[in-house]
Structure formats: structure tokens, C-alpha cells
């Protein structure tokens, strides 16, 4: 009798795994195809000149070399502003921006999702409307505002205007909406203050959303070139992305361009992996059950 039960369980387990295996195989195949651009980027960065201009072109690298990176170092050594200054600027701007953005959006999304204050609906519809409004024609009015405030030609111009990220705010608010209100009600009954509710309940629940926001915004601010060109006149305050974009051109620099492309993409990938592994079952970890 007992033996039969075990057999049945084994079979049931096998049946359950069946669908999972199909999904895994499918995902692995599709994922490999999806990874191609990234693999190509890595391969190209390590290709020697004769392989870069091979006819017909090849996908994978045959004789990997770090010549492209040496070329890149040679080019950067000749720049008026040291390479390290660009790197410092970019790291400073990225760290400040991401920190401020995550903090600001978390703090803003909580009342928008869980409080009932007069004018909340109006504010929310402002956010969603402006999300869907095409901003590119508004570039010139924005330029006039930023220059009249006087934050152009400072680090602040990279950070402050970009904090008005309505898309990410909407994302955070939507995540908090999935959390049942009862949790906060229970907290209130237990005598927690509004600030405590926010600190102890809302923030842990927004971990997934925060990680997603970091992934979504990192690439943009790390590779930032637009603000450098429009609002910055001092070369010392410009970013690494701007500098890299100035060396890409010309056939002679194809290899160096590929190397710089890899260098600019690598941090995004690292940040992605770190934050993606932080995306977990929020409900299971917050002790709600």
C-alpha cells in the first residue's frame, strides 16, 4: 500500500516537471537568440583589425586581442581633459541621481497609492497625462527654464530635471497598488505613525519596484550625452558617455569604437544582474502572511 503511494507521488512529480522542462528548453533557445547582440558586441571588441574588416563578415572572434582597448587608451591619453575626470563625473552623477530618484519616487508613490487626500486624483492624472504627452517639442521651453534658474553648467543639471521621471513614479505607484490596504490599516491599529508605516511596511514592499527602477534608469544616466552637449560648456564637467561618443567615428577607429561600446555597456549589465537578483517574492519576505 505504502509502496503504491510513493510511486503515485513520483509519477505526479514527473508530470509536474514535464511542463517546466518544456518551458526551460524553450526559454534557453529563445534566450540564446536574444543574447546574440550582446555576444556580438563582446566579440567585436576583441577582434583584430583584419577580422573587423573581413569579407564576408564573421560573427565570432577567431584570434582575440586586446589591441582595440590599447588603441582606446592611446586615444584617451591625448584628450585635453584626463579620462579619469570624465569617469569621475559620470560615477558621481550616476550615484547621486539613482539615489535621489529611488528615494524621491518611493516617498512620492506611497501617499499617491495609499492615502486619500484632496487633490490626489488630480495629481495622478497630471502624471499619467504628461507621461503620454510627447515632450520633444518642449525641449526649447525646458532649455529656457533651466538656463533662467541657472543650474546649467553645473552637476545639478544632470540630476534635478531628470528626477521628474513620471514613468518610474507610475511604475512604483502601480506596484504599491497590488499591496492590500489591510496591511496598513493593521499597522495603524497597532499604533504606528504614518512615517513608521512608510518606513517599515511600504519601503520593504517596494523593493522589487526599486530594483526595476534602478535597472531602467541606470543605462540612460550612465551613457548620458544629451545634457553634456546642451547644458555644459566646461569640458571638465562633461561625462564619459559624451567623451566616448566623440571617439567613435572613422574607419580607423572602428575597433576602438567597439571597445568603448563594450566599456559603456558593461556597468549596465553588472547593475542589471545585481538588481535582478534582488527581485524576489516581496509577499513572502515581508512577513505579511
Amino acid at each position, binding site marked *: 500500500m505504502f509502496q503504491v503511494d510513493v510511486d503515485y507521488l513520483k509519477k505526479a512529480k514527473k508530470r509536474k516537471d514535464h511542463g517546466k522542462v518544456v518551458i526551460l528548453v524553450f526559454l534557453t533557445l529563445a534566450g540564446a537568440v536574444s543574447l546574440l547582440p550582446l555576444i556580438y558586441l563582446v566579440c567585436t571588441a576583441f577582434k583584430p583589425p583584419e577580422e573587423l574588416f573581413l569579407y564576408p563578415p564573421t560573427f565570432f572572434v577567431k584570434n582575440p586581442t586586446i589591441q582595440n582597448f590599447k588603441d582606446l587608451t592611446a586615444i584617451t591619453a591625448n584628450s585635453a581633459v584626463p579620462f579619469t575626470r570624465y569617469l569621475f563625473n559620470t560615477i558621481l552623477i550616476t550615484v547621486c541621481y539613482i539615489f535621489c530618484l529611488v528615494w524621491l519616487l518611493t516617498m512620492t508613490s506611497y501617499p499617491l497609492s495609499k492615502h486619500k487626500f*484632496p487633490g490626489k486624483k488630480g495629481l495622478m492624472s497630471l502624471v499619467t497625462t504628461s507621461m503620454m504627452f510627447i515632450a520633444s*517639442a518642449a525641449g*526649447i521651453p525646458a532649455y529656457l527654464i533651466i538656463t533662467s534658474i541657472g543650474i546649467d553648467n553645473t552637476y545639478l543639471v544632470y540630476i534635478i530635471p531628470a528626477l*521628474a521621471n513620471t514613468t518610474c513614479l507610475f511604475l512604483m505607484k502601480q506596484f504599491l497598488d497590488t499591496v492590500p490596504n489591510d496591511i496598513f490599516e493593521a499597522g495603524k491599529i497597532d499604533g504606528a505613525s504614518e512615517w513608521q508605516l512608510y518606513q517599515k511596511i511600504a519601503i520593504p514592499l517596494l523593493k522589487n519596484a526599486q530594483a526595476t527602477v534602478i535597472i531602467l534608469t541606470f543605462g540612460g544616466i550612465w551613457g548620458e550625452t544629451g545634457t553634456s552637449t546642451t547644458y555644459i560648456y566646461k569640458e571638465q564637467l562633461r561625462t564619459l558617455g559624451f567623451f566616448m561618443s566623440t571617439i567613435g567615428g572613422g574607419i580607423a577607429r572602428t575597433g576602438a569604437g567597439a571597445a568603448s561600446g563594450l566599456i559603456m555597456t558593461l556597468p549596465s549589465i553588472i547593475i542589471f544582474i545585481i538588481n535582478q537578483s534582488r527581485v524576489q517574492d516581496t509577499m513572502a519576505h515581508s512577513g505579511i502572511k
Partner: protein
Amino acid sequence: MSKKEEKKLKKAEANKPVAPKKRFFNVEKRLGYTLHEMWTHKMSYAMVAPFFIIFITFSLLPLLASLGLSFTYWNIFEDPVFNGLENYVYLFVDDALFLKAFTNTLTYAVIVGPVSYIASYFFAWFINQVPDKVRPIYVLAFYAPALTSGVAMAVVWAVMFSNDSTGYLNSLLLNLGLIYEPIQWLQDVNYIMPVVIIVALWSSLSTQFLSFVAGFRGVDRELYDAASVDGVTSRFQKLLYVDVPQTMPQLLFAAVITITGSFSVGGTIAGHPSPEDAALTIMLHLSDYSGTRFEVGYASAIAVVLSVMILGIGRVAFKVLGEKE
């Protein structure tokens, strides 16, 4: 006080819970109530204030300005001149290129929007069933095209769709004997839009996809157990009865992102300007006027028309997927 009057008063009180005797007071009390409500929620205002100050200064004011500018002629160098609806009349009546841009954008949005939305959801759902340890690797694989944006992607696609026989696609088709001479993928007007759409689909798992991945992790595991007690057993049923309702906020967010993204498509693999403007989109048309010709008034009118389109479709998304209150 007569009984009749008393009855009337009671009736009025029943109708309006906070009800005062006179209308005049009613207004005042309601205002007082709102002010009281605002005061009790002072914390909420303090928390949202920093964001909205930045938002109004750097986003809302420029948007409103561009809305106003759409009724003017402005070339940046001189002061804007009010010209009423002239920009809009020209846009709809005389601008033949706008029609082309409109058709291309619509074709693109109608194909890329829904396909990328549904694909994002299903891939996120599949990935949600992968063991925790390897999940980030799969997410990375599918998000890689979005990470390697810009230059890297352009290089890959240029090699893939190269016009001569060395392009991967051409050399593959030549070897298979399906074609006898290389196809001019990015020169032939008939192929440009399909190529643009295929490339866009390839790298379409981006923001929506990530929000879905994170959204699925937020689904309470206990709900699956509860559902299986109720007789929900298959994966697909669980998706339908547990995951979809639980990820509704992400579905709405992703819908808005997808609609906005696919309608405001700008630079594509086809480059700009493309042969015979075969890949001209509304966004590129807009940037021609704002950036190249410095006709900011007209560019703003294009932006307003495009925004109204997006807002209209976005409203439908809010109606279908939004919270029912």
C-alpha cells in the same frame, strides 16, 4: 417649531449627512471639511511636494508652453507670432509628408505594440516558473537587446541586413537558392518598414517586460494554493485566475508604456532620411521641424496631435485595465 418643519429638517439631514440648515453654510462647511482633510493629510502633501515641485518646473511648464506654442509661428530667433489654428490646418490639409509619417507610425504601432506587449507578458510568465538561482540569467538574456542599445545594436543589424551579398540574411538566402541577387533591405522601399518592424520586435522586451517580471514576483504564493483547493490545477488556469488579476497594475503600466513607446517611435535602423521617406515616422517629422528647420510652433502642433492620439488610446487602456473605483 411645527411638526411639519421638524420633518422637513429631518429629511434634509437624512439627505445630507454633514448637512447644515442653509446652503450658504453648506459651502463654507464643505470648504472647512476639505481644509480639515488637507490638514490631517499634511504628511501626504509633504511627501509628494518635492517630486511635484520638480515635475511642475521641468516637465509640466515646458509641456504647457509647447501646447501654447502650437498656436504660433516661432523660429526661436524672433518672438513667437500668434497664428491661430494655421499650424493644424497646414498639418492636416497641406502636409503630404505628415500623412506618410502617420501611416508608417500607425503600421508600426499596430504591429509592434500588441506583439511586444503580449510577448513580454508571456516571457515574464515563463521566466517566473524558472528556479530562483538561474532566473536572473534568463531575464538578462531577454533584456540584453535593450541593454546593448544604441551603437552596438546598430552595428549588429547593419551586418545582418547589409545590402550586398555579405549581409548575413542575404548570404543565407543566396546560399539557400531562394534569391539570385542580394536584396537591398534598407534601400528598397518595399522592405524598409518590414525590416524596421522586425528589428523593433527583436528588442521589444524592455520596460514592460521588467515590470512584468517584478510584478509576478509580487504575487502572493498562497493564492496558488488557495486556487488549487478551488480546483485550479493547470498552469494556464493559474495564469488566468491568479496571475492576471494579481498583475493588473503592471498590465496597465505596461500598456501605457507600450502605447506611448510604439507611437512615438523615432530613429530606427533605416536611418533618417530614409529612401523616399519610406521609414518616416511622426517623431522624425517632428524633429525635422524642431531641430533642422527651427519651426518650433509647427513642431509643437505635431507633438500635440501625436499626444492627443496617444492619450485617446491610453484612455481606453485605463478604462479596460484601470482600477474600478
